[in-house]
């Protein structure tokens, strides 16, 4: 259940940024989470619902962008989506996989209501 630590970090960072921007309310938090980041999405959603309690994010909507994995063959630079078996490069057959997308764990943006 490391998703709870992740959720608490999200709430920490977003609350700090909201505070810095004199937010009265945070309407939306947008996250980029890679499919290969090691996060279980359902657990993260649940953990977020717990972690927002008593923070400025209570009632905030979370938009989670699931980033599909993309890898590059280090041998021939071919870009491809890895299968479940992390099979060899479909272009040159070499097994030199390098992830260039799909491991994101990022808070992208906040939508806030600013104090007058």
């Amino acid at each position, binding site marked *: 259940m490391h998703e709870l*630590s992740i959720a608490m970090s999200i709430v920490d960072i977003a609350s700090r940024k909201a505070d810095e921007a004199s937010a009265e309310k945070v309407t939306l938090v947008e996250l980029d989470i890679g499919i290969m980041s090691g996060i279980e999405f359902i657990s993260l959603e649940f953990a977020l619902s717990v972690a927002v309690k008593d923070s400025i994010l209570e009632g905030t909507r979370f938009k989670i962008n699931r980033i599909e994995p993309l890898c590059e063959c280090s041998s021939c630079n071919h870009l491809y989506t890895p299968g479940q078996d992390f099979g060899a490069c479909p272009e040159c057959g070499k097994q030199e996989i390098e992830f260039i997308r799909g491991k994101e764990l990022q808070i992208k943006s906040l939508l806030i*209501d600013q104090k007058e």
Partner: protein
Amino acid sequence: MCDTCGCGQEGNPVRISRPGETDLHQDHSHNHDHDNNNSHTHDSVHSHDHSHDHPHQKMIRIEEDILGKNNLLASRNSGFFEAKDIVALNLMSSPGSGKTTLLERTIEAVKESRKLAVIEGDQQTMNDAERIHRTGVPVVQINTGNGCHLDAEMIHRAVKKLDPPQESILFIENVGNLVCPSLFELGEKSRIVIISVTEGDDKPLKYPTMFQQAQVCIINKIDLLPYVDFNMEKARENALAVNPKLELFELSAKTGEGMDHWIQWILTREP
């Protein structure tokens, strides 16, 4: 990251202790600083004769790494290790793969030639620290409570208490879990993932994140190969498919078979 690690319940915080210690809370206070307590006062009172129920919405771009705080602390640990020429190795596996036995055998084999120190991580009990303590090597135990992984803050505190010697090898035995520890950098030089032949040769495909983050993979308990359905060739293939740069060792910590390669690897580690 709060050092109750998110997973810890209140009243059951992370404990760091040496074998034989009874007062488990003596080395730290429980003041977690959450620097965003939005308690500010507004003392400028002004009156309006019209209402303001149309606040302006604003989009703030953040693009901040969620694990940034942990990674920053990990870099601090890493800097400390570098300055003291300490090689920190993070050992990760599922429970029961033989991490502690491997560590005991490794310590026995290298303790005459290298200075060593150990940080043990488990949810509960001092059992592993006591096993290591019997080898004569300095050890502290981190009990994470309900936490499923070690994080950089815990290591920072444990290192303060352990005070590992200059030029030592510091083994960090993470909480037994093939998922969560893979996300949390500790400031280590290398990550070592251990699987055993009783676990199935498709472990790397099932838990790719762990194998992708590691530099070394140890396949333990090879003495049991005749009794289990484990295809070593397949396991190697799967591990290298997920991470082609993985360095693989096949060994039995129990019988000592294959240990020499691993010991050689340890002895050639430089900070």
